């Protein structure tokens, strides 16, 4: 029972960052119809920017976090303007291939810039964990959880409370009508991709100091984000949020009670189960064809 509580606490904390990854990806898919294979690269980019700022430039940990997220937003906007803006209206396979090409190029550029050696990032948090009865949690992980929750709330606020968010939702519902009503579709796309990328970079910057940073860390992040998004239903933001926590619990329990080797496989088993039982995901509004 105590073990179960500890696994539950770990899963809850991991789930926050998984939800961040999933929301970013589902936002980009829902509004732009782009399967974003660079998502994991933005995640590792966030982690490397954190490493560069804290370990190389000696910047303050919290300032570095803000910087890493802002740089992630900038890189996302650059990718959208450079690669995707010319392909608006292209079919989903075309943009997917361009994103795969960008992913290969980015990942190897990263490998070239930082070498394949894993890097660790120092944190200002005390080394002794917070002990709550049978559960112990490191201060760093607790910080990650709080910031992730704050960012999830912020993302919801942007989507539901701002003018930009209204334009995004309108584009999601009906692109042509939104354009006719004067919504700047091009700007909405750039903003969406930048926002989604910023969330991925934030997840990387938060988890980088918890684990270690290495060039291919984004691959698993991408695949997990796909699992989360399918679980919640492609394009569903609440689905991605809850999906993130479900995946974290599955992984944590799978690693704890089955075998740690299959930890990263849980997400994929989950996808296959979901597709057998409820193919459109747990929270999909309606099946969108064409």
């Amino acid at each position, binding site marked *: 029972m105590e073990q179960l509580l500890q696994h539950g606490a770990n899963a809850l904390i991991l789930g926050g960052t998984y939800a961040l990854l999933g929301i970013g990806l589902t936002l980009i898919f829902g509004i732009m119809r782009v399967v974003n294979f660079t998502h994991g690269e933005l995640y590792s980019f966030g982690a490397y920017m954190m490493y560069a700022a804290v370990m190389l430039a000696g910047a303050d940990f919290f300032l570095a976090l803000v910087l890493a997220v802002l740089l992630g937003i900038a890189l996302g906007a650059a990718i959208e303007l450079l690669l995707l803006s010319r392909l608006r209206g292209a079919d989903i396979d075309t943009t997917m291939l361009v994103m795969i*090409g960008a992913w290969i190029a980015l990942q190897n550029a990263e490998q070239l810039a930082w070498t394949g050696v894993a890097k660790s990032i120092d944190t200002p948090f005390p080394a002794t964990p917070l002990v709550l009865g049978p559960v112990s949690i490191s201060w760093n992980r607790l910080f990650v959880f709080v910031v992730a929750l704050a960012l999830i709330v912020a993302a919801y606020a942007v989507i539901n409370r701002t003018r930009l968010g209204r334009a995004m939702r309108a584009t999601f519902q009906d692109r042509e009508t939104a354009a006719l009503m004067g919504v700047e579709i091009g700007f909405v796309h750039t903003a969406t991709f930048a926002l989604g990328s910023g969330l991925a970079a934030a997840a990387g910057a938060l988890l980088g100091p918890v684990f270690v940073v290495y060039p291919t860390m984004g691959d698993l992040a991408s695949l997990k984000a796909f699992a989360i998004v399918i679980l919640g239903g492609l394009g569903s933001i609440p689905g991605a949020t809850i999906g993130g926590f479900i995946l974290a619990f599955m992984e944590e329990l799978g690693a704890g009670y089955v075998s740690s080797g299959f930890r990263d496989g849980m997400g994929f088993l989950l996808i296959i189960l979901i*597709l057998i039982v409820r193919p459109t995901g747990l929270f999909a509004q309606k099946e969108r064809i064409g």
Partner: protein
Amino acid sequence: MTRGITIAWLAFLLSVPLWMTDLYVLHVLIVAGIFIIAAMSLNLLLGYTGQLSLGHVAFFGIGAYVSSLVALGFEVHVLPDWAVRLEPKPVWLGMILGTAFAAGCGWVIGRISFKVRGAYFVIVTVSFAEVVRLVALNWVELTQGPMALNNIPALTLGIPGLFEFTFLRKPANYYLVLVVTVVCYVLIRRLVHSRAGRAMIALRENEPLATSVGVDVTRYLVLATVVSAAMAGAAGALYAHYVRIVDPDVFLFIYTVTMVIMVIAGGKGTLAGPIVGGLIFGLLPEVLRGFEIKPEVQWVVYGVLMILVVYFLPQGIVPAVRGWWERRGRAPQAVQEAAP
């Protein structure tokens, strides 16, 4: 005319080991040939039904592992005191079982993922490949995990007591790969020009319309997946008994990407596309290696090339060249294969 060109090409390909004495070049051609088989199988799905399988390497790897395990024999404990044991079997049987097993996996994946269209099939296939890779990595008792399966026997054919031939040397393997490539090419050609092939193209072009005229869409999608998976499995089996070592790295996503680039660059939905793309992208890493640049730079070039191909040759090389040829007014050949 077309028949003459085909015969000339075949004669040229058959003659390669006679004048090519550089064994390394022959090795590169053999590996390229194996990848061309895999790319052709992917083209059947991507080019003719319009479904992108991004886990195609899973079928390739399953073919390689099953074939090697049958040839090597294994003993696995299903329960602590109950073991399943398989004595080593002949390699040809392994290759057939590897192909069949890959086809079976294709059937299961098709049945699961064609409940929904669009991005789902892509993500299911990606996930499937990842699960299989994790199994290969972690089920050490069966697959040796990261230690790899070593000393895989080469293919031996013959009639017991009369004669026997082992495909050990490079020219023999070259011919073996060439024969399998031609067989797969002919099979795919016959399939896409049959009733089933027309159904696949119809559903790629307009699924609601195809359904309304009575095409059983899911059935043909599953059929294409099974055939495609079987061919990828056969390519994997050839690979395993040629390089004679298989480790979980055969499941790396980058190999799927390589196949996808071969198909897209060559021209999806054309019979010659994967062959042209396979030759270009199969030989490109060797050319890049000649410039003595770091492998990371090679891959950056690879990624950038992929983006450029999508931008400038969205239909691929073969349709682009054919269009150019026809615009010149010469050789007005009938276009038999509809470009997407």
